[in-house]
């Protein structure tokens, strides 16, 4: 055990660290073949630092399409670590692009560590057609509405469940209530709940607000009083035995589902997919909810120092690529994550001879995203009240 955080990254196969390995593989693949390497060496290089979910399994298609190489070094998905790297270690001196979950731009943008996005840059050709749902979202704008980045990917997280155990049809698209997580007698003792306040506190607040049990101004950024109400509710539910376990990692989500240790779990969508690979199609489902979702997104932001480094055109080419159909289609197929301009993804797949099944899946993703993104709430990794929320969450964990 080198230190607890290195253990963390080994033990906790998070959404992003899972992908870290993949990006390493992608790096090797990009270097594969002497000819390919020689060609790639001549291309302009964009260095990125961030969560590896944004990485393609193989960057070669991008190099072929836009003639720019991208080297992404994987960051931890821990916002504290990421902020320290950007603020403390001046990573902008060597890195062109930062890619992270929503929230960092609220702080690093106004502090001058991110460069404002030039929406009129000639290489950013797809900006105009990108929907406001994505480009004007809190993921890439700060609270004042300044534009700091380009949306890369995102999803609306809910909970996975076993339809059979809840008496639902396996193909049901019915909108379920988060009460299945928190209050339903039928699920008591059969629920797994994520143990990080950043991921799990919001849905509980959303649920309390929807049922009228609490008045909460901003679910993503609760005041100390609001956080206390949510923590009190959760403590009461914990003592009532609602939760079978409070899990900590992506790999645990998969295990809890595949072992059938729980019936309901607030988790990432890929966990449900992984579980179904073992248990069979539709054994578990990812819920459509009545109250809303933990909507998250990753943005790509330009390091302030990169503006004068002379590769700004290449940087904007990469940003534009993130908005394009090829990236969209590949990300959706390989990771199952959605993003802006899903329709371009479908077009790309059709033009490039993807199978009917793959195209149908892309269309389904587009429809799903449209259905889910209409509901509240957009999460942030940097709430102003982070301290109070974390403190209340500890009270829940210690209860």
């Amino acid at each position: 055990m080198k230190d607890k955080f290195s253990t963390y990254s080994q033990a906790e196969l998070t959404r992003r660290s899972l992908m870290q390995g993949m990006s390493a593989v992608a790096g090797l693949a990009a270097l594969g073949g002497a000819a390919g390497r020689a060609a790639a060496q001549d291309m302009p290089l964009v260095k990125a630092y961030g969560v590896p979910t944004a990485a393609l399994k193989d960057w070669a298609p991008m190099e072929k399409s836009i003639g720019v190489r991208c080297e992404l070094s994987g960051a931890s998905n821990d916002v504290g670590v990421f902020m320290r790297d950007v603020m403390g270690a001046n990573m902008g001196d060597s890195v062109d692009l930062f890619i992270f979950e929503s929230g960092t731009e609220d702080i690093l943008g106004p502090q001058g560590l991110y460069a404002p996005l030039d929406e009129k840059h000639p290489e950013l050709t797809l900006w105009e057609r990108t929907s406001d749902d994505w480009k004007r979202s809190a993921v890439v704008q700060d609270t004042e509405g300044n534009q700091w980045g380009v949306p890369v990917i995102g999803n609306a997280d809910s909970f996975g469940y076993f339809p059979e155990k809840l008496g639902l049809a396996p193909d049901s698209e019915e909108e379920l209530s988060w009460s299945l997580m928190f209050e339903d007698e039928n699920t008591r003792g059969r629920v797994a709940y994520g143990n990080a306040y950043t991921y799990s506190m919001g849905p509980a607040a959303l649920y309390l607000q929807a049922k009228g049990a609490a008045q909460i101004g901003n679910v993503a950024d609760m005041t100390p009083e609001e956080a206390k109400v949510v923590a009190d509710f959760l403590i009461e539910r914990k003592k009532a035995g609602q939760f079978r376990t409070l899990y900590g990692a992506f790999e645990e989500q998969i295990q809890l589902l595949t072992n059938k240790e729980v019936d309901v779990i607030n988790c990432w969508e890929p966990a449900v997919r992984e579980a179904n690979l073992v248990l069979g199609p539709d054994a578990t489902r990812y819920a459509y909810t009545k109250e809303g979702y933990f909507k998250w997104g990753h943005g790509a932001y330009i390091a302030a120092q990169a503006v004068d480094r002379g590769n700004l055109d290449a940087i904007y080419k990469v940003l534009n690529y993130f908005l394009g159909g090829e990236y969209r289609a590949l990300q959706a197929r390989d990771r199952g994550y959605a993003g802006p301009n899903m329709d371009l993804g479908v077009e790309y797949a059709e033009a490039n001879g993807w199978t009917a099944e793959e195209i149908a899946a892309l269309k389904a993703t587009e429809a799903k995203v449209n259905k889910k993104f209409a509901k509240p709430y957009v999460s942030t990794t940097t709430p102003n009240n982070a301290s109070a929320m974390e403190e209340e969450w500890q009270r829940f964990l210690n209860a």
Partner: protein
Amino acid sequence: MQQSVGAAGRAGVLSGVIRRLATMKVAVWLIVLAWFVLVIVPIIVLFAFSFFTTEQFRTVYTPTTTTWVELFSSGRWEVTLRTLRIAMTVTLIELAVGFPFALWLAKGRVGKVGRAVCLAMLTIPFFLDVSSRTIVWRAILGQSGLVNTVLMGLGLTDAPLDWLLYSEVAVLFGMVVTLFPPMVMPIYLAISLIDDTLLEASNDLGASPWQTLSRVIIPLSLPGVMAGIVFCLGPALAAWVEPGMLGGGFVNLISNSIESAYSALRYPVVAALSAFVILLLLLMLGAMYLIARRFGDPASLFRVLRG
């Protein structure tokens, strides 16, 4: 009694070395300085940080006791007590199980092959990642795991036992398994260093097996026992994998609490929690020192290592 055996000559050599070192005042001061810079300064910085606050992920360098007040008012400090309680329980269990095992391994009727196999089995875990060793237990202790399946198959229980996993019992179990080698190895080494002739002499002089154990083996193995306690208690206090994987979030220990504060970049909380643990550790070390003194000069504990 053991002190006299062959110690006089070596003590002479050692005191010679010490005398020479004492004259080299520069070396001593350098060591003290290095120790101060590398150990004491970080602790002072840590302690100082606990009097700042964080706002918007930035540390505000205005001295305040807010963090400490919150630590106690929110009940967060309880994690330190819980951690201490669990760590000490684990250490006691390890000692109770590990000492007889080490004694048997070092002085019992174990063949060469048997001993080699045992030592190999104790060593192998050091090369395996704790998390991968721990996660296996989830499949064994879970509701549809091996143990529950067997118990229900035999008709011993009607419903799966819930407390086997995601409970304090599970965490204790996981930690006992993980920390067994660090406890056993130093005790085994200390006991195997005890000269067999001492045991024979004790026997010849009419001591009962119990007297030989309590008056010869235990005092001579104390350095190993102390090392075992330190090697066990330290990691147990910092335990992270077992509470996370087997506690199911219901056994919140100091590492988990610190990590959570760290994820919100609350360095002052991290600092206060760490400082509080250091304080508790100092108290415990003080207690250990007092206990050790009952067996004579604490420094003499390590005399056997020269033997």
